[in-house]
């Protein structure tokens, strides 16, 4: 009897927390999904522009040339979609795991508005020709303080929430969220200072840029994505995470090693040899925490694979976690010159970035969104088959994109290294793969424009009025 009462109280508590988180979390999810839709359309365009510059080539479409659509797409994907959606998930997880209702949601919404304003100015600035040509830092110089201030506001909010937590064990996801809170400002300020404010030699800028991209993946996107995976995998299975020791090894390993990575991209380049060497050893040693995380997730799921069949959250999260492991193994292998010489200056760069940002991070966050949104809006996802399509179009898209860019990049780099052959050979070697990549992009584009539509239906409360969740199996025919 008391158990039932306790359970009822828990339910009401959870429902109250969800209600309090509704405004900021939905704000971040919807604006992120809009940026995602914009970015995948730009991603498709830039992938076609790579081999067919005449595509969409009207005088008034001057801003769509490859040199602008490519950084604009990456900026919109990383800052518009990835970080913003990650923050949305982090807010909800933080509220749930601290078992405290969201206070001052307006702080978050204001910070979110500034963030979106920054991304908008950034993308329009790139279109207008004011991009900085630094990868992942292509927004015009004036933008980064806006983004930094907006993010800092969210960090202050997250820490205040942490202060208000209910006493007890701090769960793994909270470690990762707090980690990402502090690491993003550190990485972002450092990179901008050494690239925009106190620029050193050109090679130092390039090294800083490579370090920044890698650190963004390992210290910002990875913690946010792993926080989500560590919450939703055991949550949906209803069992504890396999081992807290492995979780600690995974967390501290990532925290210690993540910030050393990136410069291995320039091995053999005009930098002191120890710089790429240290980054190279960092990505190799990262295999230890990655292995710990992978074992932890695998052992937690073990014996319950059927849930991957039915639960959208579980399926997306498991696919994302797998992509993270693959990304880390490929990164470690590329630290060796025998593979690295083919992956440093070719299309493979795109394969790595997309595997991390889309394959790992976005899929994991999709999983979280499919879980969280029904709790915020009080209705269920309208269509299971649409979620299924989103999953398959996304995974087929990203897998073929990564394979094509990776293999195509190896051919391309092999042609580059033929010193006595014309440079044109390298372009034509990569060309068929670039064409294939456009088809994969089309699939990703379709799936995410559909996702935006699906999410809009939910935000407008046009979902199914039902007490059962929308699942992927055939138990619940699409309503």
């Amino acid at each position: 009897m008391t158990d039932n009462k306790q359970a009822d109280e828990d339910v009401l508590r959870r429902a109250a927390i969800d209600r309090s988180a509704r405004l900021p979390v939905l704000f971040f999810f919807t604006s992120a999904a809009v940026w995602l839709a914009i970015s995948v359309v730009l991603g498709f365009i830039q992938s076609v522009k790579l081999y067919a510059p005449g595509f969409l080539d009207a005088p008034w479409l001057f801003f769509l040339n490859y040199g602008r659509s490519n950084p604009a797409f990456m900026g919109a994907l990383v800052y518009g979609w990835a970080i913003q959606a990650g923050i949305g998930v982090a807010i909800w997880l933080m509220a749930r795991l601290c078992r405290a209702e969201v206070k001052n949601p307006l702080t978050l919404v204001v910070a979110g508005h500034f963030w979106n304003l920054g991304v908008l100015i950034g993308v329009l600035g790139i279109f207008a020709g004011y991009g900085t040509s630094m990868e992942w830092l292509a927004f015009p110089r004036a933008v980064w303080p806006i983004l930094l201030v907006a993010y800092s506001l969210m960090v202050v909010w997250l820490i205040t929430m942490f202060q208000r937590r209910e006493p007890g064990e701090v769960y793994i996801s909270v470690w990762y969220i707090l980690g990402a809170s502090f690491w993003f400002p550190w990485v972002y300020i450092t990179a901008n200072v050494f690239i925009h404010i106190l620029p050193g030699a050109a090679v130092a800028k390039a090294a800083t840029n490579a370090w920044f991209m890698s650190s963004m993946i390992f210290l910002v996107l990875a913690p946010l994505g792993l926080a989500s995976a560590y919450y939703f995998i055991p949550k949906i299975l209803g069992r504890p995470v396999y081992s807290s020791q492995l979780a600690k090894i995974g967390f501290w390993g990532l925290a210690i090693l993540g910030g050393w990575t990136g410069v291995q991209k320039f091995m053999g380049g005009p930098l002191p040899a120890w710089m790429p060497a240290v980054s190279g050893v960092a990505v190799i040693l990262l295999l230890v925490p990655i292995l710990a995380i992978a074992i932890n997730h695998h052992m937690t799921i073990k014996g319950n694979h059927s849930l991957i069949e039915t639960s959208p959250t579980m399926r997306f999260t498991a696919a994302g976690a797998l992509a993270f492991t693959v990304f880390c193994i490929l990164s470690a292998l590329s630290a060796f010159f025998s593979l690295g010489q083919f992956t440093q200056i070719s299309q493979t760069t795109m394969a790595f970035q997309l595997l991390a940002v889309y394959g790992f991070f976005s899929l994991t966050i999709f999983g979280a969104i499919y879980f969280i949104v029904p709790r915020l809006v009080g209705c269920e996802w309208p269509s299971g088959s649409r979620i299924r399509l989103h999953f398959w179009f996304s995974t087929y898209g990203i897998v073929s994109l990564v394979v094509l860019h990776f293999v195509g990049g190896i051919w391309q780099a092999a042609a580059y290294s033929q010193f006595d052959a014309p440079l044109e050979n390298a372009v034509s070697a990569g060309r068929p793969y670039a064409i294939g990549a456009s088809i994969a992009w089309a699939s990703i584009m379709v799936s995410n424009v559909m996702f935006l539509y699906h999410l809009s239906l939910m935000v407008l409360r046009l979902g199914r009025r039902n007490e059962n969740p929308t699942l992927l199996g055939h138990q619940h025919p699409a309503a």
Partner: protein
Amino acid sequence: MMSENNENRDYEHKPSVREHASARREKQDPEAGFEPLSLWFFSICAFVLMIGGGYLGAKSAGFDFGSTQVSGYKAGTPPNFTPAGPVLSERDKYLKSGEAVYKTVCNGCHQFNGRGQGQIPPLVDSEWVINGTERMAQIVLNGIRGPITVNGTSYGAQEMPAQKGALSDQRIAQVITYVRERFGGITDAVVTKEMIADARNRHGDRVAQYTAGELAAEDAMLSGEQPAWMNPEADAAEGETSADGKNSGDVKDPAVNDKAPESKETK
């Protein structure tokens, strides 16, 4: 649980059931378990650490800021390697240097095609270029002003400044050789820096620019030996082209002839 068919009735009659349905059906919040670590995990970690240590030792080049290469690296020449680019003869190099001087110093007035502009006389087929080198060296060293007749046309509103302070003997020799070859079609002799040094000794003290009447005679040549690389065989071979190409302006750079009419129109 699986009451899909009466879901709407539930909603109608008991809204509270649906209201917290998602919060109600979900499982407990996760916590961390306490399974022990397996020995396999530690073995794999040890293996990875070993590889990492070996990697760092092999590639860090002793953490030396000055070394951009891994220790033991030797730059080699790839098989079948031939240095890229054409191999220039000594004479071609001499002319290339002359062209570089022409482009920095003479280009602005006489134009790259050597046809001059307005009151600046042309160099192409000019008797002042084709004939004696003595007076040409005088003009370059000290400059010239006042009326001058070139190819039957009179010029003179513009004056040419002295170049003796700006250019070394070597540079003057190279640019004169270049102008004579390119605009005069003269390929059988070059002007050496010794010749210019001699001319500078004789004329270098002059303060004012020359006027046309003050210059040396039309056929006075600078005296001096031709360099060793101007061997007789090369002379014989190129004598023919000079005979053919003497009055056609430029044989080396056909673009000059194509561009010439255009530049006249724009004037």
